[in-house]
């Protein structure tokens, strides 16, 4: 072949390959099925927008198409993992520590969702499920596929990570929110609030907040205690997220942030509020598997030690660990892995262990504004993959009721975030009725709940991020 024809041929091939690659990418995108929810990221994916002149004029329409394309792009998960690998080759982790600093812009753009496992039994006419019931074929089918459905209606605020500036959606659950407390939300930004540090195969979240950020929540809890009076015992259980436990001193610069925050919180709470000493208990046990390596939650074991601490405060004796039947869900890669895509974290991985109370309970959950309960589960054992933490209570519901045959005559209401899910099942061994309110989603009135069911104990169980976020206090005020 003469040289100039060969050059021409190769140039044309080059053009065809390049344009062809772009076209193929586009076509594959159009032809592949789209997911509506990303279980790994725990958020709903962008849908193709509905046409309206208004949306176009605001620029939202085209922006939504961009989001739709990037959220549903072909091989998205694999490409994201590859970019995690590429990241790890950018240099050498100093002293084995990788720092992932969050980007506030990115955080506010994302639409995180807690994994909510909807038990496959959704018809209210079915009998209340005994939690020991063997999962129905329906459950198995769900478990095999994805096991997780995040209801669209659930609020999408990531207050779990303590961001004060999330774009709060107009959902029923958040519409009753009161105005932000200017003292804590505007003037004192959190430090390091979104930083994740990967050290020795474990992801550690950093909490950074001034003591003053605790004012709001402590005030609300004191009000609860005063107004509920002597008939109702109010507990506060701080849940450390492990910031203090797993990093070298040099990195922490000697700051035991969580310890400081919890001590300060205890000081702000009235003497009548019973303080649960979880921090000390967990600190003692930090060498055990009490926090996940790849997820922002604690493990069932961590929650068990908190339960021991709570037993001391509530004056009952905790059941020994061997008296629970242990179950395990393997191959769990949690949110912190999804966020960092760190190969080191993938290597460590996680297993979700849960400890089942040795008797049957009846569990119901209630949607806001509905008085009919829907049968729920204490352990959604079909939970798998990135949503495996959902095994505890099956996810987050506005209100749950756990009826247990212990006959102690005690009833408790737990106001919790998702850390509480791993903790609540243990209470079934000591309370006839346990009511579980998720502070993000509950829209009813705590006062009337206490009155209606004659509840004698109220427990606030909040992790450090939630404790310092102004939103927590706003919510607690709004549903009192």
């Amino acid at each position, binding site marked *: 072949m003469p040289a100039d024809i060969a050059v021409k041929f190769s*140039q044309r091939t080059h053009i065809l390959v390049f344009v062809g690659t772009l076209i193929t990418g586009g076509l594959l995108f159009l032809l592949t099925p789209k997911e509506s929810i990303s279980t790994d990221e725990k958020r709903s994916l962008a849908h193709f927008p509905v046409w309206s002149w208004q949306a176009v004029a605001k620029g939202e329409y085209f922006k939504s198409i961009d989001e739709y394309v*990037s959220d549903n792009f072909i091989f998205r998960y694999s490409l994201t993992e*590859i970019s995690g690998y590429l990241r790890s080759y950018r240099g050498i982790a100093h002293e084995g520590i990788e720092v992932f600093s969050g980007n506030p*812009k990115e955080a506010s753009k994302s639409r995180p969702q807690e994994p909510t496992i909807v038990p496959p039994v959704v018809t209210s006419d079915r009998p209340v499920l005994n939690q020991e019931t063997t999962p129905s074929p329906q459950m198995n089918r769900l478990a095999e596929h994805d096991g997780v459905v995040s209801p669209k209606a659930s609020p999408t605020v990531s207050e779990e990570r303590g961001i004060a500036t999330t774009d709060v959606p107009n959902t029923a659950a958040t519409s009753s929110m009161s105005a932000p407390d200017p003292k804590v939300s505007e003037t004192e930004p959190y430090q390091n609030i979104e930083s994740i540090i990967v050290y020795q195969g474990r992801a550690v979240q950093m909490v950074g907040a001034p003591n003053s950020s605790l004012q709001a929540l402590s005030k609300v809890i004191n009000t609860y205690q005063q107004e509920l009076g002597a008939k109702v015992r109010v507990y506060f259980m701080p849940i450390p997220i492990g910031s203090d436990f797993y990093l070298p001193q040099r990195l922490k610069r000697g700051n035991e942030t969580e310890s400081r925050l919890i001590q300060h919180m205890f000081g702000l709470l009235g003497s009548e509020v019973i303080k649960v000493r979880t921090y000390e208990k967990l600190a003692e046990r930090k060498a055990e598997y009490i926090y996940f390596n790849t997820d922002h939650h604690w493990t069932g074991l961590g929650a068990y030690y908190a339960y021991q601490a709570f037993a001391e405060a509530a004056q009952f004796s905790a059941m020994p660990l061997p008296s629970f039947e242990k179950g395990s869900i393997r191959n769990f890669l949690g949110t912190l892995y999804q966020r960092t895509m760190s190969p080191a974290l993938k290597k460590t991985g996680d297993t979700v262990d849960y400890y089942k109370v040795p008797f049957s309970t009846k569990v119901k959950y209630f949607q806001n504004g509905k008085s009919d309960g829907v049968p729920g589960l204490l352990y959604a054992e079909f939970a798998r993959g990135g949503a495996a933490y959902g095994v505890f209570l099956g996810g987050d519901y506005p209100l749950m009721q756990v009826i247990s045959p212990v006959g102690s005559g005690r009833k408790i209401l737990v106001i919790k975030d998702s850390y509480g899910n791993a903790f609540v099942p243990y209470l079934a061994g000591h309370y006839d009725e346990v009511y579980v309110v998720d502070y993000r989603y509950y829209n009813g009135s705590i006062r009337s709940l206490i009155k209606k069911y004659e509840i004698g104990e109220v427990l606030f169980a909040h992790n450090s991020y939630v404790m310092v976020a102004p939103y927590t206090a706003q919510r607690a005020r709004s549903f009192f």
Partner: protein
Amino acid sequence: MVFANLTFLFFFLPAVLCIYYAFPSRQVRNLILTLSSLIFYAWGEPIWVCLLIFSAIWDYFNGLWIARFINRPKLAKLGLLSSLSVNLGLLATFKYADFIVSTVNVLTGLDFRAPGILLPIGISFYTFQTISYTVDVYRGEVKAQRSLLNFMLYVVCFHQLVAGPIVRYAHVAREIEHRVFSASDFTYGISRFCQGLFKKVFIANIAGELAQNFLGKPAGEVSMLGEWFGLLMFAVQIYFDFSGYSDMAIGLGRMFGFHYHENFNYPYMSRSITDFWRRWHISLGSFFRDYVYIPLGGNRKNATRNIIIVWSLTGLWHGASWNFVIWGLYFGIILLIEKGGLLRILSKMPIAVQHTYALLLIIIGWDVFFFTDTGRLWDSLVVLTGFSSQPFYDFEVISAASSNIVWFTLATLSATPLPLRIYEKVCECGKFGIKQWIIPTTNLSLLAVSTTLLVGKTYNPFIYFRF
């Protein structure tokens, strides 16, 4: 829309290329390119696309008017004035209104409400393009474009619409009417585009994150080395972001048969600030030279005054905030000093000293550029010079530097001509076959890595959009 975006890469670009090359007629191609450019613009700016169209039509008629009365200077001047006043008026309203109001408030103690208009994308670029056109027609340097479609194409063409380079009408006038397809142009365009995309996604975006991690914090939380590191990352970000964008624009131009002028020439290889401004954002520098500096008298009359005016304006063009004016003046003053004799002294120094001198001043300039809050800027300068109580270094900066050392080495090398030179050598060496394979493979690899990173990260703002 932006280039480093999946919708653009996998839908818009291939669709436009296919439709464009499906029609042999140049007029139809111009129409396709114009319409697709309007869609491209409206994608991000659905309302202000009207402003773009208005601006283009207005100057189309101004051009015709000036051409018609070219022999009657007074009437022709009217057309020029109409162009200048509308374009500068648009800029004043849409870009500088808030700045003007707040400055007036500070100076007079009054309390006018800022109108709070959001800056339409690319307005600084397209108004300058149309100004250059009418001035050139007035000066008789170019002929007025008779076809509205062809003129629209010059103004709105999506390659350079939102982030430059500022294309002179004279450079593309012939190609708007008589361009031909050339496979070698097209393949060159692919290479330039992929290189630009890679610079933007692999270097600028990452550098941007790192810069933000340090400069985004209050000065009281950053060590001295941390502040320097953040600043260095910003220097990397802004260069690769902007030059990557220019590469993509030039590459796209080639795919469609246009030859735009270069906008960057390894500015961090400069040996003086004078040199730097010949290598950085060349289309803007030459705009101010040809349309402001020389008309003011250039070197011949009031050179110092002219330099100060030009550089205040150059600064202000970059953003409606005082720090940009300071940034411009900073360079204006350095240029005056260099002109006054420093250049001569520098040229006798070892080359390493010249590079260090230029880079240091450029990087300090970026500090002024970065902080629109002059309070934080001052704090930053205090931290940088070691006059604060902040530690010399801390864990954060060591960790960030160490975990990006490989990437940083690549980025630094890419700011020099070395990698491209080696690449060209490799392509040229050996037998004919190597080049034919190595170039497409490299381009596809760059595209693959960029796509991977784009998918892996939603963080993708073009910082040059503010201008």
